């Protein structure tokens, strides 16, 4: 059954990275509860465009929860109220008619605002560039099972690899820390045989890049794990801490 609801929106509008920015209030009528959150924003933007106003800029790409491009803070929670759900996969049925929905960009010193809800998250890319890869000589396609990996280990690595790099961990952390992202990326590779060669350098250089990008420090608030759309566990942060100590001492 399709229902429709009327909603009030309070959205952060900011012309460019240097502008001051402020909240603007909008009302939308007859929003189908089958719509995704981003479709609702599309409807708003069509309305704004027809009225000759500037549409709200927001990031998105796949709209199926796998690319990590979308993301905003909805009523104080990154990606909105549904656990393990990206903003593009959040549906309007989770809101009631008459609700006021406050939409803010991810806020962190390391994520400067580009426009409205769009932030520059390239700091995460630079952490990856610092060591989030394995260097292998390419040749013919290797046999899929040439390197035996215990299934439990493969699972742990795959769980970490589920990170889509959206930055919700940074946005939700009271300290603006990027430890869940970095922990997942380090774990994913250090668990596998292919990741052993660069294991120490990787941990040290990704962590030092993370620090120099202006992220805060983890104080184990667990907020990141609670909002992560892919359910990445903070045990990856503990693993990163072990990797850091091992790489520094031995």
């Amino acid at each position, binding site marked *: 059954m399709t229902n429709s609801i009327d909603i009030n929106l309070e959205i952060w509008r900011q012309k460019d990275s240097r502008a001051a920015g402020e909240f603007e209030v909008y009302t939308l009528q007859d929003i189908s509860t089958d719509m995704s959150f981003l479709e609702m924003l599309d409807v708003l933007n069509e309305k704004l465009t027809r009225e000759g106003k500037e549409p709200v800029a927001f990031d998105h790409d796949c709209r199926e929860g796998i690319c990590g491009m979308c993301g905003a803070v909805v*009523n104080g929670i990154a990606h909105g109220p549904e656990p393990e759900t990206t903003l593009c996969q959040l549906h309007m049925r989770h809101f009631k008619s008459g609700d006021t929905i406050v939409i*803010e960009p991810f*806020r962190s*010193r390391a994520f400067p605002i580009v426009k409205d809800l769009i932030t520059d998250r390239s700091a995460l890319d630079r952490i990856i560039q610092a060591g989030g890869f394995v260097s292998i000589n390419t040749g013919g396609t290797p046999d899929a099972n040439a390197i035996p990996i215990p299934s439990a280990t493969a699972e742990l690595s795959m769980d970490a690899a589920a990170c889509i790099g959206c930055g919700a961990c940074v946005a939700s952390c009271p300290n*603006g820390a990027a430890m869940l992202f970095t922990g997942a990326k380090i774990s994913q590779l250090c668990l596998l045989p292919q990741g052993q060669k660069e294991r120490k350098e990787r941990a040290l250089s990704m962590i030092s890049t993370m620090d120099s990008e202006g992220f805060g420090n983890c*104080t*184990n608030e*667990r907020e990141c794990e609670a909002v992560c759309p892919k359910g990445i566990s*903070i*045990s990856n942060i503990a693993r990163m801490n072990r990797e850091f100590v091992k790489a520094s001492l031995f």
Partner: protein
Amino acid sequence: MACSGLCLLLFLCSHAAGNATLFISTSLFQSYADQLHSHPLIVSVFSKGLFLVFAIHIVTGVLLFLQNRKARPRNYKVRTRAIKNSQASGSMIYSGLLICLFVLIHTAAVSFGDHGRIGVTIAEMFGSFLLSMFYILAFIALAVHLSHGFWSMLQTFGISHPNYTTFIHRLSYVVPLFFLLLFGTIPLLFLFGTGN
């Protein structure tokens, strides 16, 4: 943070053991204090070391707090925590500063007092209702601080394994409660006149 926290935790254990003698009698406590002070070298090394550890913990704690505040120059309009029981972790700096105030008052009263009659000093101190209440308030702050700090320390050291999650979770209640009960009942004992 975690290393200095661990040192403070170890100190708390030894301090708790020493103070437990008060449950038996002030004279036993006095003889424990006399024993301790008959080894001036040990007392001097440990008290200076302890001061250093406190200083490190407080300075890094305050720096961490300031750095982390800077990492989010503008805060959210709506601040919702996805984690429900986040009161202890969000107030580490405040519970810490209250403990710091307590430590200053406590050392002023005890360390620089007359060690020869320390048992009597303690008994007199806890005769005061207000001072006893302040002590208990500080012990509650300590329990709150540890309820996040203990687990946080283990996570920082990388001590995390699915088999031990429940055990660690229980410890993070048991450890602070243990210290709260042990330290907290001492002033109560004297207040209600059962201490001797």
